[in-house]
């Protein structure tokens, strides 16, 4: 059988860190290849290379037997490669037909006017191919997520795509929409179009794909026909590596006192009667896919998002109608997943960021700030966090590395000696060395008696650090794992498994 796309020995590194180590895979016409792996395993990098966004350092790609080396995304489009991204690239204010031709409107008799009639005819034809029964003049804003995705596919077809890459296509779809999408994918395959299907929802991958390739840490961990790749095998190939020694040993055991008690927290569409407890000195891991409600839960506890019903108690005291101010007052600290947007004031100095959540402790009468004290507590914070610089009054945090920025965020909260520290993706985008430091700090925190609610996309991290792990899916706590050693495949299955189609994401 002929091959449509042949990728071999693909290697790429960023800033000296190799993220792809000679990856090979093949896509045949009329077949779907499933590409799975944890975050950071190299899926997006290889797709970016395929799409002409990045150029590989080594390795070759052949499309229909021809050497293929795209220099930019335009090359990829003209070679017949189309991407259907998680976030759709449509203009909601334009109509379906305008979206289809927005980069190349056909002209009317060579004059600089748009040939509306030609557009309409071509749009109707491709919409028919994706079974979408809407008028070409419908504004995209009026379409559902599923319909918009079909418009994207129609757009790919109108550009004569030979290979269509789907990146987490089912994330925001309802089940009937997913079924409809799979029907269309089958039709595309029947037409001889090749598919690359990327998803965390492993059941979907099995349902759609003919062969599957598993990436781990930039290596091809395994590949084969879908029939030889049950979900269990995919998971063990994905997480394969043993837990490294980067997780420090815990010296202290969790205490008895409940520092956080959440009861029946509900918000339509976000949280379904969530109840959980965190004890003093305990690390509770929260595993779940993006959109499962894991971050939303943290934001509700901290008073950033609203909830309809339920109660939150901190140290036994009810926290009613929480706001960040009240939550902080009650002893909660919150490291958000969006470090640049919410965790830090990027244009402010290290010192200014260090005291921003504890201004009361450095202010005298009339709220006058004690600049000497601010400088000294910031330097002290920098030393205990092993910050890369001691110029705390001059250095703006935007000039720090990701790891050092995260240390400033943690340091600013530690100044408040929190009874509960909620950490949402504390090690995202930071290097291994800094990760280890963050783990050390988390451990020290529990030794001091703080409770920790840890949210992470990295199952390894949850397993390495947590005393207990809860899995959340579709706004509900679906499983609880109380004893070490944790069964990572069971945790992953609970987080991605039977409900995978509703909330999978990168």
């Amino acid at each position, binding site marked *: 059988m002929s091959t449509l796309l042949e990728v071999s020995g693909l290697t790429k590194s960023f800033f000296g860190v190799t993220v792809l180590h000679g990856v090979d895979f093949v896509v045949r016409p009329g077949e779907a290849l499933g590409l799975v792996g944890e975050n950071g395993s190299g899926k997006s990098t290889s797709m970016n290379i395929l799409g002409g966004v990045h150029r590989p350092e080594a390795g070759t790609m052949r499309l229909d037997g021809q050497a293929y080396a795209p220099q930019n995304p335009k090359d990829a489009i003209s070679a017949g490669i189309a991407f259907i991204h998680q976030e759709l690239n449509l203009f909601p204010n334009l109509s379906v037909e305008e979206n289809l031709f927005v980069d190349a409107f056909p002209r009317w008799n060579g004059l600089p006017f748009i040939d509306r009639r030609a557009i309409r005819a071509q749009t109707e034809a491709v919409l028919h191919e994706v079974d979408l029964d809407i008028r070409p003049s419908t504004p995209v804003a009026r379409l559902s997520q599923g319909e918009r995705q079909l418009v994207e596919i129609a757009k790919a077809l109108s550009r004569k795509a030979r290979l269509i890459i789907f990146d987490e296509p089912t994330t925001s779809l309802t089940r009937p929409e997913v079924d409809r999408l799979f029907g269309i994918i089958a039709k595309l395959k029947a037409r001889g179009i090749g598919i690359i299907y990327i998803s965390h929802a492993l059941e979907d991958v099995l349902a759609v794909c003919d062969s599957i390739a598993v990436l781990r840490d930039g290596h091809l961990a395994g590949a084969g026909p879908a029939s030889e790749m049950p979900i269990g095998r995919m998971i063990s190939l994905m997480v394969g590596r043993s837990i490294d020694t980067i997780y420090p040993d815990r010296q202290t055991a969790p205490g008895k006192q409940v520092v956080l008690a959440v009861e029946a927290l509900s918000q339509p569409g976000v949280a379904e009667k969530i109840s959980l407890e965190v004890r003093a000195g305990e690390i509770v891991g929260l595993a779940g896919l993006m959109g499962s409600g894991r971050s939303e839960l943290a934001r509700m506890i*901290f008073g*950033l998002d609203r909830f309809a019903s339920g109660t939150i108690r901190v140290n036994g005291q009810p926290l009613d109608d929480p706001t*960040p*101010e009240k*939550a*902080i*007052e009650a002893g909660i600290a*919150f490291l*958000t997943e969006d470090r640049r*947007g*919410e*965790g*830090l*004031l*990027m*244009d*402010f100095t290290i010192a*200014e960021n260090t005291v*921003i*959540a504890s*201004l*009361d402790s450095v*202010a005298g009468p*009339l*709220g*006058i*700030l004690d*600049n000497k004290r601010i400088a000294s507590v910031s330097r002290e914070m920098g030393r205990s966090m092993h910050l*890369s*610089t001691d110029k705390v009054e001059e250095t*703006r945090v935007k*000039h*720090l*590395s990701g790891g050092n920025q995260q240390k400033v965020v943690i340091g*600013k909260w530690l100044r408040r000696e929190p009874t509960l520290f909620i950490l949402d993706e504390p090690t995202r985008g930071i290097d291994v060395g800094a990760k280890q430091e963050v783990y050390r700090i988390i451990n020290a925190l529990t030794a001091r008696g703080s409770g920790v609610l840890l949210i992470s996309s990295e199952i390894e991290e949850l397993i390495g650090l947590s005393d207990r792990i809860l899995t959340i899916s579709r706004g509900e706590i679906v499983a609880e794992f109380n004893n070490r050693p944790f069964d990572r495949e069971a945790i992953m299955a609970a987080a991605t498994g039977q409900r995978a189609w509703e909330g999978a994401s990168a």
Partner: protein
Amino acid sequence: MTITPVAETATGATQPPSVLRRLGRLMLSEYFVLVLCVAYVLAIAPFVPEILSWEVASNILSDMMPLLVVAIGQTFVLIIAGIDLSVTAIVSMSAVVGASVMTGTGGYLGDTAFAVPGAVLAMLFTGLVIGAINGFSVIRLNMPSFIVTLATRMFFAGAAVWYVTFHSTSSSIANLPESFAEFATGHLFGIPLTVIAAGLIAVVAHVVLSRTRFGRAVYAVGANPRAARVSGIPVERTILFCFLISGVCASVAATIYVSRMQTGSPIVGENILLDVIGAVVIGGTSLFGGKGKIVWTVFGVLFLLLLDTSMKLLGASLFAIYIIKGGVILLAALVDVARNRWLVGR
């Protein structure tokens, strides 16, 4: 770690021409606008030597005071990435309300001992109320401050004229107490009272912005309201307070105007909006929020008035003055953008 471009050029061996480097450093300096003021005076002095006279200087100083007070309030609002277009209407409304309280012809407290203090309180209260309307509309109704204050500006500019019709047969409220005029004309230790009042406000505002918790909150909200909220900063209260400060500052300016003109006119503040916002921007306060200083605003107001006065002395027409001022403000906005770009490395 990145090194700041300034430090790089200061320490590096191969460097761009030193004139450019100095110019760049000067533009980033705190006192850029003050230097500009001095340079401007020196450059224009050969043509209008009067500008160096004591009389012109003291005129500039006294003209500067009401504008400065309004601009100080505006600085707070601009730092939180808002804008207060209603300041001129606040000046007008406060002026007529205050005049209606103290006028000898049918004033609420006219000819009593409480006429002047009562009027001043009424004026400040007017500023506070309009500031509160602005603030609450922004934080509770989530409306952009541009629209909110554009609306309150139109509303109270109209309301001020309408208000006068209930208290006076002419277009303004006159017959104000003699003692109130002393605010504009009086001196303490040889310094005009208005200068003392405005100076005091400037010093307090400077300390509040640069040295207090509230000031830190103002900058944080302007730089990134989401991050400020997560850090427990009362974002909404901070925004509200900035509009209250702007409102009260505008009404303080109204007391100066009314005292000077000895009449409560509903159009007293009509023409100063451009000057106020222009002066703050010339000073260097960023329209993008998160950046600004009272000292900058002082220099900005000074520069604008130097420009204005010298043009008048040169005999330029009103339109020519508008054209030049507009050009200078545009230039200042451009400099702000350039500074932001150059400061990327800082």
